[in-house]
C-alpha cells in the first residue's frame, strides 16, 4: 500500500515540522522496518532509535500518529491513518536529532537506580510458583511506554516512573534476595513508589501486559509489610498514609479534616496551609465544623485492622528471625 511517512525534524510536539516521504509498503510490514526502509531508500540522514526489531529491546518507542508505540510491534496496515504514518519523538526525553531521543537520562539512569543484582540470602531451590511474579516483571523490555503515559512524569521529570519501579519490583519480590528491606527503603525515597498517583495509565500503556501500576501498588504493600513505614524517605507521604490509616481504624471512615491537617504537618502548619481555602469553603457551606463521628460498624472495621496489624507483625518477626 502507498503510505506517506512524516518525520518530525523540527518544531515542537504540539506544532511539529515534518519531512514527508512516499513509499509503497506491504501492510504487514512493521512500522519500524518501514521507517528503516524510508531511511535506506530515500533519506539517509533520518535519525531514530531501534535495535532488535522483535519486541525485545524496547529501543524503538515513538509517538506514531499521536499514540505511543513500540514501533517494531505494530504493522503499517493497522497503524496508518488515511494512508499516513506520522512519527514524533516520545515526550519525556530530550531529542538528540529528528525523532531520536536521549534514552539515558530519563529512562536508563532511573532504571539503574534499582538494577543492583540479587544479593543471595541462602534460599534453596525456588518453586516455579514463587518466582512467577518476578518473572513477569523480568519480561519488561524498558520500552518506556509506561513512562510515556505516566501522569506524574508529565509534570515532574524527576519522578522515577513506572519503568524504573518495575525494576525495583523485580528485585524486591525475589525470594532469593537478602536486601529486600533496603531496596524498599530506597524505593520509598522522594520520587519513588509513594509519589505514584496510581492513575493506571502505566498499566494501560504497557504493550506486554505487565501492569506496572499494579506492581507499584504491590511494592507499596510489601514495603509496609517489611516494616518500611509508608513514605519512608518522604515525610509528607508518611504523614498522609499514616493519618489516613489511623482515621479509618478509629472511626471506620475518613476524617478529611484530621487527615488533611496531619498530612500537611500538624495543626499549626496544616492550619496555615488550609486556612484560606478552608474559610472560603466554610463561608460557602462546602465545609462544616460538625465533629467527625464514628460510623456504625466502626468496631468491626477496627477488628480488621487489629488482625492486619497482628499478621504484619508476625511477618516482620519471621523476616527478622
Amino acid at each position, binding site marked *: 500500500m502507498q503510505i506517506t511517512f512524516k518525520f518530525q525534524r523540527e518544531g515542537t510536539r504540539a506544532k511539529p515540522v515534518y519531512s514527508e516521504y512516499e513509499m509503497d509498503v506491504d501492510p504487514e510490514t512493521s512500522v519500524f522496518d518501514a521507517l528503516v526502509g524510508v531511511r535506506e531508500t530515500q533519506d539517509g540522514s533520518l535519525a531514530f532509535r531501534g535495535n532488535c526489531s522483535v519486541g525485545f529491546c524496547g529501543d524503538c518507542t515513538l509517538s506514531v500518529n499521536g499514540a505511543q508505540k513500540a514501533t517494531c510491534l505494530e504493522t503499517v496496515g493497522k497503524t496508518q491513518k488515511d494512508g499516513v504514518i506520522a512519527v514524533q519523538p516520545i515526550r519525556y526525553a530530550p531529542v538528540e536529532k529528528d525523532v531520536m531521543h536521549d534514552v539515558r537520562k530519563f529512562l536508563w539512569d532511573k532504571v539503574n537506580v534499582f538494577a543492583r543484582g540479587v544479593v543471595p540470602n541462602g534460599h534453596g531451590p525456588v518453586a516455579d510458583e514463587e518466582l512467577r511474579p518476578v518473572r513477569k516483571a523480568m519480561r519488561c523490555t524498558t520500552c518506556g511506554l509506561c513512562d510515556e503515559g505516566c501522569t506524574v512524569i508529565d509534570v515532574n521529570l524527576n519522578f522515577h516512573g513506572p519503568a524504573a519501579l518495575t525494576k525495583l519490583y523485580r528485585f524486591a519480590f525475589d525470594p532469593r534476595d537478602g536486601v529486600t528491606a533496603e531496596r524498599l527503603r530506597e524505593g520509598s525515597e522522594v520520587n519513588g513508589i509513594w509519589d505514584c498517583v496510581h492513575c493506571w495509565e502505566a498499566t494501560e500503556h504497557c504493550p506486554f501486559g505487565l501492569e506496572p501500576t499494579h506492581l507499584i501498588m504491590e511494592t507499596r504493600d510489601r514495603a509496609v509489610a517489611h516494616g518500611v513505614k509508608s513514605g519512608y524517605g518522604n515525610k509528607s507521604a508518611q504523614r498522609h498514609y499514616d493519618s489516613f*490509616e489511623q482515621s479509618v481504624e478509629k472511626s471506620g471512615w475518613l476524617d478529611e479534616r484530621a487527615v488533611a491537617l496531619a498530612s500537611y504537618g500538624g495543626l499549626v502548619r496544616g492550619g496555615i496551609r488550609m486556612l484560606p481555602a478552608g474559610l472560603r469553603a466554610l463561608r460557602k457551606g*462546602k465545609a462544616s465544623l460538625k465533629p467527625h463521628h464514628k460510623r456504625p460498624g466502626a468496631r468491626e472495621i477496627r477488628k480488621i485492622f487489629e*488482625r492486619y496489624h497482628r499478621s504484619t507483625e508476625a511477618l516482620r518477626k519471621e523476616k527478622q528471625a
Partner: protein
Amino acid sequence: MTRFAFYPGCVSKGFCPELYESFVRVAAEFGMELEELEDVGCSGAGVLPAELSDPINARTLAKAEAMGLPLLTICSTCQGVIGGSALRLSDPAHRERVNREHLAEEGLEYAGTTDVKHFLWAMVEDVGLDVVRGKVKRPLAGLGFSPFYGCYLRRPIDVIQRPERKTYLEQVTEALGGTNVDIAGKGKCCGFPTLTINEENSLAMTAKHTGEAVDKGADAMVVPCPLCHLEMDGEQRDAAKAAGRKIDLPILHVPQVVGLALGMDPKELGLSRHLVSTKKFVAQLQPVGAGA
C-alpha cells in the same frame, strides 16, 4: 424502578455535600430507589493496602449481596477501589480466606456476586439515555463541557469491564444537549492523591487539565469523582497562581450537570458552594422549558 445499595463514600458526606444532595435529587427524578448503606467502611481509596481494603470492601459487598442489590457508588475512586477488591475477591481461594479470617466472626459471608456500579454507568445502562433525554427540560445547548474521567473510570479494563464505559461522560453530555470539549488529560490523574505529598506535582496537574479546557473554550468541566472536585475546584486558585495564568473554570459533579438539564435550580444542586465561582456559567443557562 431500579433499586440499589447506595454507597455514598466519605467525601460526599464530608467536603462535597453538594454531590450527595444533587445525586439524591437526580436519582429520585430517574426513579432510582436507594437503600443507603450506613454500616460500611471507607473503601481505602488506593491509600490503604489491599490486605486491609479487601476485607473492608468484602464486608460492604457482602451487605449489598445480602440485600440482593447491586452496589451504587457516586465516587470513581470508591468505584475503582471497591471494583478492584471485587475482582480480587472473584478468586475463590482469596475470598474464602477473607471470609474466614475477617467476615465469619460477624456472621457475614461474601459469595462474590455483587455488581459494583458508578452512578454514571447506572444512568446509561439502567436508566437509559433515551429516558435521560426525555426528561431534559433545559437543554445545555451552547455550553461546552470538558469531560474529566480521572484515574478510575477508564481503567484498569478488567475492573471497568466494558470498554464502552470509557465514553459515557461524553454520551451523557450529548444527551443533555451540551457540547464536549475534549482534552488530552481527561483520563489522567487530577493531582489530588499527591496534594499533600508533592504539592508542586499536584498543582501542575490541575493547572494542565483545567488550563487546557479553558484554552479550548470549555465553559465547565464535568467530574465523576469528588476527589477530582476537591482538587480542581478547591485548589484551582493555587494551581493557576503556580502556573502563572488565569483559569476560573467551574468544576461540576455529574449529577449537578444532569440536574441542571432536568430543570433543577442551580442553588438546590449546590453550585453556589463551589470555591470556583459558577455565577458566569449559571448566567449562560437557558430558562427552563426553552427549546425542550
